[in-house]
């Protein structure tokens, strides 16, 4: 491992100042970051340890909204009683990450900002994510790669909590050198056609401090369904985060977001629209599944993800009906 300095800032401002000096990385839980430093996928001179700042892991209600500190561990998030009750999709997503050890160390902000797990990137190929000019998966081993939104990079976004947060219409509180700002979740993640080296709009000296969820509403049902290639410690092959606002048997509104199929959490606005005002029946669920895969562009080795996505959307919808 390359030698680095561990810096313990006292507050966010100091953290940003340290980050602004260049070649520094934020460390929250460090569960993925340290592995990446060991693998030389990143070689920071300074690690800015956010755990030294108090209060970044709090869950609090502010005028009905739920504000969650970015440093909360995935384990704590998945066990928080209010989140389990009112935002089940987020608790379930957090609970599905990695292993108990990873969830004990890994944080919400770290999970949202996690770098891709594409095997070309992680093996140090000179790809678009590693400063190169080519995506090796496009004509290579793309079994686990994108069927939506790909090009020029075909990675899939690795986060479980990110689709849940998009489905919940969260807001991201970001602090940077020029101050604090709130980014709507729809503007946080970024397709590779905008910038193939990154997955979101954060600058290197930005800190994702907290995430706010809209006030809990009656009749909301939500869930996270994750398909794994083994029962633990893999990323989603396909996942679905679904939030339905129900009025008895009628769906008033829906937000459906896919994980594991696109370089960003992949929202399905057309499927959401077709559910509004409808009774969720097996027939409607089947139609929703069909609509979910419209526009999918699979690569040579991931065609199976298309029917898989269709079926997982159908099932997840029925499970909430």
């Amino acid at each position, binding site marked *: 491992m390359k030698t680095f300095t561990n810096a313990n800032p006292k507050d966010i401002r100091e953290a940003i100042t340290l980050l602004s000096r260049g070649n520094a990385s934020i460390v929250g839980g460090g569960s993925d970051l340290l592995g990446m430093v060991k693998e030389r996928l990143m070689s920071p001179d300074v690690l800015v340890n956010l755990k030294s700042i108090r209060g970044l892991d709090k869950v609090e209600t502010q005028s009905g909204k739920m504000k969650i500190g970015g440093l909360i561990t995935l384990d704590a998030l998945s066990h928080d009683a209010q989140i389990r009750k009112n935002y089940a999709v987020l608790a379930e997503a957090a609970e599905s990450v990695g292993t108990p050890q990873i969830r004990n160390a890994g944080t919400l902000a770290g999970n949202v900002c996690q770098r891709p797990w594409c095997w070309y990137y992680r093996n140090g*190929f000179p790809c678009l994510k590693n400063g190169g000019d080519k995506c090796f998966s496009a004509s290579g081993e793309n079994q686990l790669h994108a069927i939506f939104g790909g090009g020029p990079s075909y990675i899939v976004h690795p986060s479980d909590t990110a689709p849940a947060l998009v489905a919940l219409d969260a807001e991201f509180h970001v602090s940077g050198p020029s101050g604090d700002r709130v980014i709507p979740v729809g503007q946080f993640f970024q397709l590779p056609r905008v910038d193939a080296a990154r997955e979101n709009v954060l600058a290197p000296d930005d800190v994702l401090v907290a995430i706010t969820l809209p006030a809990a509403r009656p009749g909301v049902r939500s869930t996270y369904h994750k398909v794994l*290639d083994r029962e633990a410690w893999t990323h989603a092959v396909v996942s679905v985060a679904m939030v339905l606002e129900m009025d008895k048997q009628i769906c008033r509104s829906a937000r459906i977001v896919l994980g594991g199929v696109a370089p960003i959490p992949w929202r399905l606005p057309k499927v959401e629209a077709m559910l509004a005002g409808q009774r969720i029946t097996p027939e409607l669920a089947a139609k929703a599944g069909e609509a979910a895969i419209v526009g999918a562009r699979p690569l040579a080795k991931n065609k199976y993800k298309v029917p*898989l996505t269709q079926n997982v959307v159908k099932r997840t919808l029925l499970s909430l009906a």
Partner: protein
Amino acid sequence: MSVTPLKTVGHPTQRIDAVKRVTGTATYTGDIQVPGMLYARVLRSPHAHARIRKIDTSKAQALPGVKAILTRENCDIVWSSGDTRNKRYLFNNPVRFAGDAVAAIAATDRHIAEEAMRQIEVDYEVLPFVLDPEDALKSDAFAIQPGGNLSPNAKGQHEPDIFRHGDIDRGLTTADRVFEDHYTSVHINNAQLEMRVSIAQWDGDKLTVYASTQGISNCRTDIAKDLQMPLEKVRVVCQFMGGGFGNKNQCHDFDLMAAMLSKSAGLPVKLEFTRKEDYVAVHGRWPTKQYYKIGVAKDGTLTGIQLRGYSGMGPYRKGAGGIAGVELYQCPNVETTIYPVYTNMAVSANLRGPAYPQGIFGIESLMDHIAYELKIDPLEFRLKNMTRKYHDELPFTSNGLEDCIRRGADAFEWKKRWHAAGVGAGPVKRGAGMAMGAFGSAVGRSSAVVKLDGSGKYHLHVGVTDVGTAAKTTMGLIAAEELGVPLEKIEVISGDTALCPYSVGESGSRTTTHTGYAVVQAAKDLKRQIAEKGLPQGSEVLTASVNADPAQPKDAARYSFAAHFAEVEVDTETGHVRVIKYVAAHDSGRIINPLTCASQVKGGATMGIGMALHEELLYDRQTGVPLTAGYYGARVMTHRDTPDVEVLFVETEGAYGPFGAKSIGESTIVPSVAAVGNAIFNAIGRRVKDLPITRDKVLGVLA
């Protein structure tokens, strides 16, 4: 069929070192710290095949803390057990796979060693590479070794390994039906928990190597041979080891590198691998391509079996490269032709039942298919055609295969669970499958020393390291039984060539039958001495030392047998496969320790399920670089993937082994892959013929 009960042997017994292992007080090789020790790292080729034009180590050499650097330019040691056909150096030029060693560095800490690794400048001339064994045999393929890509046989001839029995043409032309199909398996890693590590320390011209080895005696012999040292100048120590599954036999290049770095630096050296290195740089199971033709008569009797197979050995011939399984069937006409082929993938050699699970997957899948086609219950088809004589000729010393099938089927409730293929209603379908297996159980050379001191304590010296099989406990139990004393009276001294006699090495499932046999003989000799001289008093010690080399029976074959049964749930909408019930029936003769023996079976079956459903060292075809090295990428089984494995022992009576024991460790994985594959077929009525049976393939055959 059952064996006469004994006093100590045959009762579930906790490992004698269990508490040390589970409380973290056992000292594994990686835990050992020698004062003044340096830390070493290995620079490896990023290319699948390349000639090294130039290596410049000057910048690395100049880094403070760097104490020794070895490359081909200053080290031309040949690692003899790394290749049985060609000269394989510690550092080869050309490098022949992504991960082939280029240089080794020892420094005062591992971070400096890693930094030095990055400062070494290597000028590579990239060469063409080939990954597929059939492609490697094409006339336009680039030769990886002199003489071409068909690895020569033991006589040095570039010819395939051919076995013939009867007349295959007759066997196929006289058949009522001939079935033809092909199956493939991939390179997977042993994935043992303990990564490769070696610590070398010189004292004058004497060398001590703290190794992580499956055989201290073999490791020592190989080190002495490759470093051209007298055997008595080399000591190998491995008190606790954390698994190997066949890739820690003999000595390894890293043992020799540690020794040479230590010699060059004049200080002890510890060389540790990362998990990724462990996956790519040592060896795994050989991938195969298997083409079968099987002739059957109308009544289901086999008339001929023909196999043409290709085994990808990587660029060095470390393993045998066979494809086993055809011999499980009684058939008058058999022909197998196996091509062990050089490729630029990671080296392939021993992994638990080296030639078996992949071969059994092929033959047992096709036999299963034939049974369905002939409308015969696959279980009845096996009972009809299973081997009664080895290669149709030699009787077995004991053959519990039929009992394994019948008793396993009862425990599994085969009649209730097995059904016509693919008939289940709904998207989630259940299916049942089974497969047979066998593994050799030879007796042979090994040694043991038993001492009795004046205090009444027995000391058993055996050169085992205990690769996870509980060999130390097994040896203690065998001695206790023969001596007629409780296990607690016996101290087992193992894992150090300075303290222990030769042992065969914990490979080939031989420890119980080879070293166990020597223990019985030594105990017998000690009892004779006690009868003659009386019990030792005060500082007196009685010593019985035996170098046993029992002859194999010439008129009979000695094998262990097994039948595994799996029930799976296949979700036809998601391609998800889950094993929900598993029964493993084994004939390993008398079971010395039912507790640890059952653990072996559970572990083997679990490994096999992982091989069936998940694991692959997947290569990028554009660059020849592996993509899935490590536990995350290779999708090694987790506890949550593992079903309860119900274990049954059919204890056949048979001579030769200690108290009639046969082998166990490797037979446990042999039928498992095929059993799972056959269960998936039974569930969905479609067959995936290429391992691993992943979601994309399941959804692919269903599409």
